[in-house]
């Protein structure tokens, strides 16, 4: 008995081991839990980003470290016609696809928010373009737009809609339209499902009450659904803009930036110069030229999210 009492006293009085104390400290524990994330972000985001900046101010080529050249690479690319075309293309590509993805996604989301037979199947089916690996689906599209064996041309011809062949990927404007179509096809499910999730948070009673008060469907959408859906819409649009602005795979597979550089975006042009031609610094400068735009988009996104949280 005496021994037990002594032991109990000793246990009570002895300070907890150092490791235990550290784990009980919330700040220390939070740091420990964050370490893996910090390491990953450092390895895959911070390091490549800093490395990119360092590369862009040197004259590095593949296998050659190069010398410090200041902003010479940026000066060079801003005087480069293909770069300017790529900038223009990137804005057109991002702008047009985002508008269409939003409109079609919203329309689909509204449809899917209704009750009908096979709703679950339809929702799953609509996700298909988003699920299939981009490169695989883009190869299928490339075949559909093939300059010689286009199945789209074949269909249009047999339905009597065209009399000659449409040069989908050989004509600069049509090539741009083609990659825009593929991006819209691929991006609509993301908008539709995200907006559907937003729609389902809106109480049906609000619409029912408005209907009882005599509000027409358009008025109900404009004055009830749209304002309540706006926070989700903003987040989805901003995410989509970031993704689309930096898009690579669709253009690389479909056109390789051609014909005659007519469909290059930031990413594909940076790839051609940096990786293809081995001019690493110039490639890095082209990639970094995207940064101010994307940074602005991220700032807007963060400010908006904070505003919504405060509300």
């Amino acid at each position, binding site marked *: 008995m005496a021994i037990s009492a002594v032991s109990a006293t000793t246990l009570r009085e002895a300070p907890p081991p150092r490791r235990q104390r550290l784990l009980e400290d919330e700040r220390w524990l939070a740091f420990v839990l964050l370490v893996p994330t910090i390491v990953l972000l450092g390895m895959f985001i911070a390091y490549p980003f800093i490395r990119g900046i360092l590369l862009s101010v040197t004259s590095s080529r593949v*296998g050659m470290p190069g010398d410090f050249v200041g902003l010479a690479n940026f000066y060079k690319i801003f005087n480069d*016609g293909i770069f300017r075309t790529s900038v223009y293309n990137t804005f057109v590509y991002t702008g047009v696809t985002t508008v269409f993805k939003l409109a079609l996604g919203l329309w689909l989301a509204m449809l899917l928010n209704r009750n009908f037979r096979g709703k679950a199947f339809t929702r799953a089916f609509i996700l298909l373009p988003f699920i299939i690996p981009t490169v695989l689906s883009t190869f299928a599209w490339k075949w559909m737009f093939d*300059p010689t064996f286009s199945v789209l041309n074949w269909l249009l011809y047999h339905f009597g809609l065209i009399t000659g062949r449409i040069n989908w990927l050989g004509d600069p404007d049509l090539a741009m339209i083609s990659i825009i179509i593929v991006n819209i096809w691929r991006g609509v499910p993301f908008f539709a499902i995200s907006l559907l999730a937003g729609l389902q948070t809106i109480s049906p009673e609000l619409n029912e009450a408005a209907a009882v008060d005599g509000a027409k469907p358009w008025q109900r959408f404009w004055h009830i659904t749209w304002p309540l859906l706006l926070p989700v819409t903003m987040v989805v649009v901003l995410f989509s803009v970031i993704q689309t602005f930096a898009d690579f795979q669709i253009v690389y597979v479909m056109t*390789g930036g051609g*014909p005659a550089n007519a469909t290059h975006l930031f990413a594909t042009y940076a790839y051609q110069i940096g*990786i293809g*031609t081995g001019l690493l610094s110039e490639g890095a400068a082209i990639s970094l030229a995207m940064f101010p735009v994307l940074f602005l988009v991220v700032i807007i996104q963060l400010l908006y999210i904070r505003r919504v949280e405060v509300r």
Partner: protein
Amino acid sequence: MTTVTRRHVLKSGTALVGGMAGILATGRAPAFAQGTTVHWLRWTDFVPASDQLLRNEIAKEGEKALGIKLNIETINANDIQARVTSAIQSGSGPDVICVLNNWGQLYGESVIDVSDIAEELGKGQGGFYETSRAVANDGKKWIAVPWCIVGLQIAYRKSWFAEIGYTDGKFPQTWEEYREAGKKLKAKGRPIGQTLGHTFGDAPAFAYPYLWSWGGKEVEADGKTVVLNSPATVESVKFMVAFWKDAHDEGGLAWDDSNNNRAFLSGTCSATLNGASIYIEALRKPDTYKTEAGGQLKDDILHAALPKGPGGQFSYHVPFSNLLMGYSKNQDAAKKFLGWIHSKDVYDKWFVSQKGFSVGPTTDWEKHKLWGDDPIMLPYKQAARTGRFAGYQGPSTRKAAEVVTKYIIIDMYAKAVQGMPAEDAVKWAEAELTKVYV
């Protein structure tokens, strides 16, 4: 029963720790566990039988002869440059990389000097073609071992050209004649198929000799002075615009190196500049590819050189060469492998499997009995003798390679075909060249 003493355990443990430290220091697995593997990256050959031969037979023979395991990886030729760049920058990747055109010049600082292998190969096999030398030698040393040259000739439909007057295997001799022939054929729904797209082989192999044949050139012999913007170049561009509209399949602006094969084999185009892969494929599947009359397509294919222009008649054949990468940890084995694979007996098997699609990098291969097998392939036999290389009239330097990989000459024609005035297209290309050659 062996007694394991405490001293025994300690000794073994110390040895193990020491061994591990050694392995970690060298960054390599010990030889007994590792074996020697040479990783060879190549394009996916347009003659599939050659890739099969390399994998199924030559790799096994190499293992027996050299004790080296050969890991052959094939990828789309358009992706090779990206692989080379990432391998060099990361310091790891294939030990040997087979590159096309003059791409090797872009990586001169990152490869091993292979002059000993190349010199011996040249001496022993009749000397290199100028094209092979130009792309694999930087003027001081061999940066690559020339592997082969894919000859580019126009494959054309014998019967269709006969219908418009080119009987007995005759073919248009000048660009004017070719355009007139193409015009007639296009009117019948049988246009000429040609890529002006961003692709590695058929596009430069057409655009460069076309430019030279009009008297145009990138630079002077000094390899620095850009002289593209000349009346000859402008004329060539003007002619191309009309030629394209009159005679070509206009989808060619978006074609890669495989589109013309598909178009020709399906009877959609009448003539196309190509390696002999169309004919070889028609030979391989005679009952698949038929003419509209039901005959075998292989019997209706002939080959001809590109026509003459005001400046002469030229060609560009695509050279291939093997880079031994500087980061390779198996340099000795890779060198041994390169010497072995280029040796006459071993190379011969691969050469035969190509059926003439490739000629050897040295002139001895013109004497091979293979050329007696099929007269349709004869135009490829000595094609490499007449080929010029990108960068003409200057040397095929890194800058010339940059021009090729940026598709500047090809895009000059493509832009004009898309509607840019010829003079502007030439000015644009000249400005791009000046940026490169500055």
